[in-house]
């Protein structure tokens, strides 16, 4: 796969279709893969990687890249393409300046999941069909890929690649996903338990803004939390209120636009399950206003700028509550 992608990247550059391509390169550690722009065959041959740790969603980078003049090539995994389309709907990405290549994905891995499987001293990981060959300080070990997947890939909602000029690998389909199970578990708790759960999670927030910076939906020219005149400016999780405020408003601002790509939780250094906030909105929207997947359909009106005359009343929140 990696070689096919690299070949395509080189072809795009050399045929003149693109002036540069957006891909992934290894960072400090093998599992620390970062997005990068490549402008020459040499750079690609030297640095370009595609493997089980290329979780980063490249579509957000296209907002800036598509405005720099010339055409940019980009490799997008299925879930990235939802963001890609959503950002086009919002006129953030200029599609005429992008040459998108869809790459099928077998699910991205999480180094912590590998460690949790009891494998220590990991040096590198190699894909071998459905399993991983893990090189460690203590010799090689084999592990089912499924066991190493990140949470978001374990509950992958779709392998479908949208809106790309060409594909590498097979086109996939939407698939049933258990991604709302955790939300449902939380909903089933008492308010006290939920409150305690979220205090436990959100109190760890250090306001590094990684979630905001990585989120494709959080692409505002200026964030309200950075704007002194917005009335919501805050730069540090000064107390529990501001921890709550930041995450509630952030989730609200991306509600109806969040494709559930899961980048927020991936990058959170404190391992706060931020996707559970976004998924709550998605679940509510699906249940109250009908199924909606952000980015899936270029023409569908996003639920928060849409309505039906017979939408449920806000009291539905009180009425359907499972706990008194």
């Amino acid at each position: 796969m990696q070689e096919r992608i690299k070949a395509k990247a080189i072809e795009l550059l050399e045929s003149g279709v693109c002036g540069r391509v957006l891909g992934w390169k290894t960072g400090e550690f093998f599992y620390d893969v970062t997005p990068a722009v490549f402008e020459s065959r040499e750079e690609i041959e030297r640095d370009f990687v595609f493997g089980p740790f290329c979780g980063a969603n490249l579509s957000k980078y296209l907002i800036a890249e598509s405005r720099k003049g010339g055409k940019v090539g980009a490799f997008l995994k299925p879930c990235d393409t939802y963001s890609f389309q959503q950002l086009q709907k919002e006129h953030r990405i200029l599609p005429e300046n992008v040459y998108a290549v869809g790459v099928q994905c077998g699910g991205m891995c999480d180094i912590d999941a590998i460690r949790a499987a009891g494998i220590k001293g990991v040096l590198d990981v190699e894909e071998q069909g459905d399993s991983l060959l893990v090189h460690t300080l203590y010799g090689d070990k084999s592990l089912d890929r499924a066991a190493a997947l990140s949470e978001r890939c374990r509950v992958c909602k779709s392998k479908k690649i949208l809106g790309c000029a060409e594909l590498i690998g097979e086109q996939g389909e939407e698939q049933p996903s258990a991604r709302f199970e955790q939300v449902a578990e939380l909903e089933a708790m008492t308010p006290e338990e939920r409150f305690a759960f979220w205090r436990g999670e959100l109190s760890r927030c250090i306001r590094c803004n990684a979630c905001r910076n990585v989120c494709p939906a959080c692409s505002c020219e200026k964030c309200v939390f950075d704007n002194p005149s917005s009335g919501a400016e805050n730069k540090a999780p000064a107390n529990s209120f501001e921890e709550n405020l930041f995450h509630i408003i952030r989730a609200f601002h991306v509600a109806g636009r969040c494709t559930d790509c899961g980048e927020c939780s991936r990058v959170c250094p404190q391992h706060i399950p931020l996707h559970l906030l976004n998924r709550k909105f998605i679940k509510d929207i699906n249940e109250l206003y009908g199924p909606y997947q952000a980015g899936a359909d270029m023409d569908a009106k996003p639920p928060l700028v849409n309505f039906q005359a017979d939408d449920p009343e806000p009291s539905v929140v009180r009425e359907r509550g499972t706990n008194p």
Partner: protein
Amino acid sequence: MQVNETFKPTVVAFCCNWCSYAGADLAGTNRLQYPADVKIIRIPCSCRLNPLFILRAFQRGADGVILCGCHPGDCHYTTGNYYARRRMTLLFSMLDYLGIERERTRVEWVSAAEGAKFAETMNDFVETVTRLGENRRLEDLRCKSE
């Protein structure tokens, strides 16, 4: 549940200018009593209510926040309350999800003719909020005056 007789909640009522603010005026004209704990903020339409305002109110010490607007279908701006309805439904659901008492937030549709409904709504809401007591789950201690 224990009811603290001396607790006087702070309740912020956002009222749309065309229906509910007029409904509140009608309650006044008809001398229909409701607790002085309710303070009304006039907004042009229920769709003007930003979730930030609600959180801000809780931060600054509100114990309950209620939004009143025209009945769905009767919005002065045709569609504003439909958007407000979705926004508030989702926001309230999120607050509930975070374990914040869902009874502290409410939306009621009150027309300009429903002075009595306005007063009843406020009486009922203040009673509910009083029963819940002081808002502890979404407060900012730095903003407390005492």
